[in-house]
């Protein structure tokens, strides 16, 4: 299963990157391929490729602000949560998405 996503937060210094790292680590544990683009104060890092988006079963946006480039995900199941959820309970979040999609 493939999930792509974006993390972003108010200042873009800490939460964005902690959430990204934890979601990727949780994905590894759950055998879910997770690719996350960080939209922070340093700009867009780890930008998602068209191919990654195309192959995604779902899109996860963990953010407290409006993210850029949401139109790239047209037609994909989209889950939006506060960025803190990506830090607090990344495994839970990914498991829920997996169950919802029946994967």
């Amino acid at each position, binding site marked *: 299963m493939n999930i792509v996503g974006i993390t972003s937060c*108010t200042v873009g210094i800490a939460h964005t*990157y902690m959430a990204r790292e934890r979601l990727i680590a949780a994905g590894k544990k759950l055998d879910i391929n997770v690719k996350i683009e960080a939209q922070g104060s*340093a700009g867009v890092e780890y930008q998602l490729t068209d191919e990654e988006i195309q192959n995604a079963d779902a899109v996860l946006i963990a953010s407290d602000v409006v993210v850029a480039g949401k139109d790239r995900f047209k037609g994909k199941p989209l889950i939006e949560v506060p960025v803190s959820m990506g830090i*607090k309970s990344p495994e839970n979040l990914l498991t829920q998405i997996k169950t919802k999609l029946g994967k």
Partner: protein
Amino acid sequence: MNLLDVMNLETINVNLQAKNKDEAIVELSKLLYKENRISSIDEFVQAVCEREAIGETGMGNHMAIPHGQTDAVLHASVAVGKVNVPIEWESLDDEPVNLIFLIAAPKSNKEVSHLSMLSQLASVLSYEEIQNELMGCKDNDEFLRVFTQYFDEYSKNRQ
């Protein structure tokens, strides 16, 4: 580029005296000021407090990452403090904190590469085993050595 671009021995204090959150932020800001990394303690502290008002910077597992982005920041930096008696802090797990990473981010676009350093720092700090090991460091030297080791390892394997 390495971790020493954003921190050094002088911006670490594993025996922070602060008794509460405000004192911790000021005490750590003073370290940054002494090292010429911020131009004004007041202005920087204000930016950090404004950020604090928006939402919790306690990340769980007794660690907080308060941060401020303002023109008063001359160079992207981080000051680290550890308190022996946990202090109250708005946290994702509602627990008090012992370990505080105060991040100072500049507004200038010229500093993008350093901002990226700070983002890597936050990434490294997302791992509980690293948090726990840093929590156990007895002096500033040990802290810097352990943190540098983890940081370099992360940077090398960055994906």
